[in-house]
């Protein structure tokens, strides 16, 4: 199966996903959308790691382990982030990044 699709193709998909995620995180103004962009970036990293593991050293588990840790930590991070967005919405009555700006200079 690993012969059917070259490693480069998988890496291109991951790189594209990373760029889309980065663009989304930087360009979107809604906090939830920013968070989704970040999740896309993390998924691109996971694809990278798993692809390197599967194509280059399938006998060992480093790449896989790294991906599993990233998935776990990303879940914890998303939980904190969503809670924070709710807290922001309660005090600021908005979830737009541009409107939440009380400090300047």
């Amino acid at each position, binding site marked *: 199966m690993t012969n059917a699709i070259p490693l480069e193709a998988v*890496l291109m998909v991951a790189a594209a996903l*990373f760029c889309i*995620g*980065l663009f989304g*995180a*930087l360009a979107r103004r809604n*906090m939830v959308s*920013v*968070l989704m962009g*970040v999740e896309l*970036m*993390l998924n*691109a*990293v996971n694809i*990278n*790691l798993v692809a*390197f*593991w599967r194509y*280059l*050293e*399938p*006998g*060992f*588990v*480093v*790449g896989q*382990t*790294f991906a599993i*840790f*990233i998935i776990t*930590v990303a879940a*914890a*991070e998303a939980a*904190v*982030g969503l809670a*924070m*967005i709710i*807290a*922001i919405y*309660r*005090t*600021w009555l908005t979830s737009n*990044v541009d409107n*939440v*700006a*009380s*400090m300047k*200079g």
Partner: protein
Amino acid sequence: MFQITDIPRLLPEILLLVLALLVLGSDIFEKWGRTQEAQLERVRSSASLTAIGLGLIFFIALVQSGYIPFTVVPETAAPNFFINIVRNLQAGGPVGEPITGAFATDHLTMISRLTLIGAALLTSLLCLDYRPTAHPAEFYALILFATLGMCLMAGATELIIAYLAIELTSIPLYILAGYFRNDMRSSEAGMKYFLFGALSSGILLYGMSLTYGFTASALAGNSLGNNLTEFAQIASLARIADNQGILTLGMIFMIAGLGYKLAVVPFHGWSPDVYQGAPTPITAFVSTASKMAGFILLLRLLTTAFPGLTGTAVWGELSGWTSALALLAVLTLIVGNLAALPQTNAKRLLAWSSVAQAGFVLLAFVAWAAPQTFDRDQGTVALLYYLIVYTLTNLGAFGALAAVSMAVGGDEIADLNGLARRNLGLAVLMAICVLSLAGIPPLAGFFAKFYVFMVSWQSGAEWLVVIAVLTTVISLYYYLRLLKAMFMEPPAAETPVTAPPGITAAVVIAAAGLIILGLFPNLILGILSQVQTVAGF
């Protein structure tokens, strides 16, 4: 392999975890109530438990490191209860290979650990009489979890551990920055910290995945173990493999990702807002301890994993990561110091000054471009000395500011007006910290700056030192504005400003440390110079 004898080497980290759980659990036995007094009582009990525990852990780590001469037991001493304890502790001292190749307990880890635990101790003192919160135990437990993450960051010699340590540090700090969630500024600070932090984790991880891809491809499926993400393994494979492009790309992504955490320009966008909006003791903690841990990780990563890409920062032949860090340092120094000039809010001014201080720290990294090992070691010593002094200074300055803003109700520069007449002691302590930040001679800040300039100059980056000295002169202007407000301006009211005992204690410790380290730098330089050959390359 992990051995049972490795457990004493991890003792401070294990104790931090135990203390954090203890603080969380002990809150159940407190008297709960909705009144102000009942809340303050719970805050005090959690804070005292945290402070006492951190003091004990600091002491244990100090004995373990063997840096205090009279705690080192001679070989011939007859064994008794205490001597056995000390010997067992020091068996986990700064010796040996990294544990399973992933966590080093060398001198660098020991010194950073002591500084980080010390910073957490001072922070918990600052929080002792701070605003009552609804859930005090969580507040202190989060500080402890973050400290644990920072200690792991300082010792990580492997990409996965490094990532987990960064997240263990960052996630509690996001929550702490936004802890007063009904306060608009605090919640904004937490949100901004979180969004930028999550973005930077993504960038950092992409760099890590590329680096892993490089090591996996270097051996072309013939790897012998699960050690492909260890720093030393990356370095040794970089010497034999020819696929350097992907490795360089991975390193650039990792520098950018860590740069966000360290708030160096151009990755600093979040830091002034976060530092201004977060509760002041947490600002002190974030701007000192988490930065120190990040710099130590950056040092270890760049010097042990990428020694082949060191390059040089000499003008005209810029190359490698030293030149990248030199350019970041220039940007950080110029932007940080110029942006601090027009500030009217004292907390924001100190925030921009913290950004600028990171630029001085980056100067010490440039020393790695020097060809002689001796000069490189001097660079590491200068870096550690600067970070320790900076930690004390910033904790003291933000601590004094916290006391003022608690009493006066604001943290504008105008709120500092006439502080000398309202509380002379506090004004003098704050002046010591501010003068040390500016680098005025008898204080430790001067020697730290001088040392960093010296190692950077010796490595051939004279242009960088000239810019740094010029920006130091600029920085005097805004530091002196704080002093002018405190000593020259008439006070808004004649009522004395009282500082709570916890904050006073922390600021006194910080100021005393600055004077002692400034007059007798040899006290710790001897210890710091043991951090030779972090890498051995």
